[in-house]
């Protein structure tokens, strides 16, 4: 498996988009930390941008890469290797290289300007989000053979998780404001990896306490080791479920 990843990585690392992505994140992070004044403020602004750009770039890049690698995968499929191995290698290759770009572009500045647990959470969240959206990208890619369609689905997925979902949640919360919604909101948050990541970081920033009783409730949930563990587990589910589903489809489909 690692041999294959090596070759997938060879290919991606030299991809100019990855380099551009790294530089983009790097400039953004440094700029925000310089502008923001305090480390916390910098982290907050960074969080917003990370949660918007990382999913978008991850999902679009991974989808494009998947379609561009079709013939390569064909070549590999004619070789004596399991399809699942090819698929996982592709996945890990893309996810790892995007994560590496994120670690260099965001992780390093965070380490330098805001070395704190919150910073760590931001970086971990960013990496997890990358893995989630690459998995979603692969799912979009195996659903349809048509590249344009696949990228369309990927963009829709991003649009849904980054924007539409929150709008729907707001609508639901508003419509059912007479009901006790604490638990429901928690569940709704878990159903969107972007929200989950945002809440995980936010609750470790100082602003969390200001969210009043409900905020404190969530903080007590997410703040405990158990809560962090569960949040991370849900996040991993967000990686595993789409990844395994797409792998299953990939194994059964024609190339």
């Amino acid at each position, binding site marked *: 498996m690692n041999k294959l990843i090596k070759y997938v990585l060879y290919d991606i690392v030299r991809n100019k988009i990855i380099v551009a992505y790294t530089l983009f994140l790097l400039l953004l992070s440094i700029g925000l930390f310089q502008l923001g004044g305090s480390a916390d403020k910098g982290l907050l602004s960074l969080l917003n941008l990370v949660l918007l750009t990382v999913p978008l770039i991850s999902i679009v890049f991974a989808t494009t890469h998947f379609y561009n690698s079709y013939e390569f995968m064909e070549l590999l499929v004619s070789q004596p290797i399991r*399809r699942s191995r090819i698929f996982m290698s592709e996945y890990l290759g893309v996810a790892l290289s995007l994560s590496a770009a994120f670690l260099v572009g965001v992780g390093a500045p965070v380490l330098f300007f805001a070395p704190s647990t919150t910073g760590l959470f931001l970086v971990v969240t960013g990496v997890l989000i990358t893995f989630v959206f690459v998995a979603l990208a692969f799912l979009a890619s195996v659903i349809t053979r048509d590249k344009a369609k696949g990228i369309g689905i990927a963009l829709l997925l991003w649009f849904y998780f980054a924007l539409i979902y929150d709008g729907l949640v707001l609508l639901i919360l508003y419509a059912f404001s007479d009901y006790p919604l604490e638990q429901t909101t928690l569940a709704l948050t878990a159903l969107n990896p972007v929200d989950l990541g945002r809440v995980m970081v936010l609750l470790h920033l100082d602003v969390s306490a200001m969210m009043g009783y409900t905020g404190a409730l969530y903080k007590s949930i997410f703040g405990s080791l158990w809560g962090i563990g569960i949040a991370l587990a849900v996040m991993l589910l967000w990686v595993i479920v789409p990844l395994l589903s797409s792998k299953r489809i990939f194994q059964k489909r024609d190339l």
Partner: protein
Amino acid sequence: MSKTYGKLQVLRGVSVELTKGKVISIIGPNGAGKTTMSKCILGMVLPDSGDIKFKGESVLNRHAYRSQIGYMPQIGRYPENMKIRQVIEMVRDIRKNAPIDDELIGLYRLEEMYDKRMGALSGGTKQKVSAALAFLFDPQVLILDEPTAGLDPFAAEILKGKILKEKKKGKLVLITSHVMSEVEEVADEVLCLVDGAIMFYETIADIKNQTQETRLSRAVAKMMNGGTAL
């Protein structure tokens, strides 16, 4: 075996036994299911029904048998940023312990271009790489999809020579091709697919005998038209 793509039925109950030591040419009009059939054998396309047996064992959902097969795709596309050297190394990595037959690499002088990016190569050169890769591990079965399509005549000759050489070693070679002269040159038997079903599967000599034609292309055309001359 059978295969449908959506509403399109590509293979309808194709059943055939191929034995080693022969070069078999799969011919047929466009869309007759030639490539699909070879992809089925390679496991790239999974048949809806039926089975494919290799040395008596089903290959469905297996992968190890493919170490016995060399495949040359119609159009070989590779990761753009990889160098020829890396592609070859990678496949070698995958097929560890396989015997190496780098005759084609030498004949095509690929070593001189080892450090070129795949993305920078011409279609013909890519085909050379594909051919070299197909023969690299001295496989028992060779599946060549339009092998000479993108090659210059000189390179095509080298390839044909190599095919005949491997046949003599007792290997099974499957070639899909439209070029009848080429088929005539290298193949022993012709498998003709029309609309996903086998129209005939005969030796070249038999075909010529049946149709009373000396040129294979005419003979085949006659056969496909139901035995009447054009």
